[in-house]
């Protein structure tokens, strides 16, 4: 296999991590919604915490994207 094909395959495998981060982000918002529907009065004060959790989960997906791009365009 030549280098270009290996790069494309490797970038595709690295992109799996983005889907995993999608699961994480969905879990963050889903859990927040569950808690917020049980106690709507307390939900408003927790949006900051929600976005911190979102940021932490999303960062890993963005890292996977960055790794895929580095593999794809590395010379």
């Amino acid at each position: 296999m030549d280098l270009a094909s290996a790069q494309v395959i490797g970038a595709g495998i690295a992109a799996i991590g983005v889907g995993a981060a999608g699961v994480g982000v969905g879990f963050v918002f889903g859990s927040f919604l569950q808690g917020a529907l049980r106690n709507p009065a307390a939900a408003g004060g927790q949006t900051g915490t929600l976005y911190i959790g979102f940021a932490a989960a999303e960062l890993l997906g963005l890292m996977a994207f960055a790794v895929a791009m580095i593999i794809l365009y590395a010379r």
Partner: protein
Amino acid sequence: MAAGKIDPMHQFAIAPVGSDQLAASPFQFTNSALWMLIVLGVIVAFMWGGRKRELVPGRWQAAVELLTGFLDNVTMQSIGADGRKYLPWIFTAFTFILAANWVGAMPFGIVPAAHPFTVTSQFTVTGTMSIISFAIVLGVGFWKHGLKFFTLFLPHGTPKVLLPIIFVVELISFLVRPFSLGLRPFIAMFAGHILLDVFGSFVVQGLNSGSIVGYGVTALAFAFVVFVNALELLVGAIQAFVFALLTALYIHDAVHLH
């Protein structure tokens, strides 16, 4: 490009603007600098329109007051009662990232000879902003607490045996922060614009193919581009908010040491 190779990276290329008299000079006025000035102009125009200070605010003034009130609220909630000192930088970071993300998402490409450029899709820009945030954290921490600032890495109630390990772990987590803070808005814009470029090329290539399947691909890709554009506006706002919120939290750590 009818059926050519899609080149989604071209939109991020930085090139000098105007005459190339300064071509030999290391100082050049690039398209990045031009769009930073445009973003600054947008922010100044927006804020200037809301400076009438009427008792009953009009629509524009209400929008400006919404922005300032929201950021004031975030800062006070995250840092505490003495948080207003740090509001200028948090306001600057939020408005700049938000305006740059949204100006970059606008369809200026339909104007001939205009080359739209998203400033925040360059790590040099967001990385510099995160370094400024981090410099403020370190400066405030050492100014307020001196060498006691290092107790930031030792949470209360840690067992004595674990102290060296916890110190190293907390130190690493602290040192990764500026990197992750700058990486987040950069990759979000970068990925979104690559997606838009790729699916925008699908629209054009499907039209050029001249077949029924090609027109179907065009219709699907066009609907997807519209959806992703809406998502880009949301992501741009969320990333600006996350940058401001995390900066405020890091400053809170430096001010209060846990």
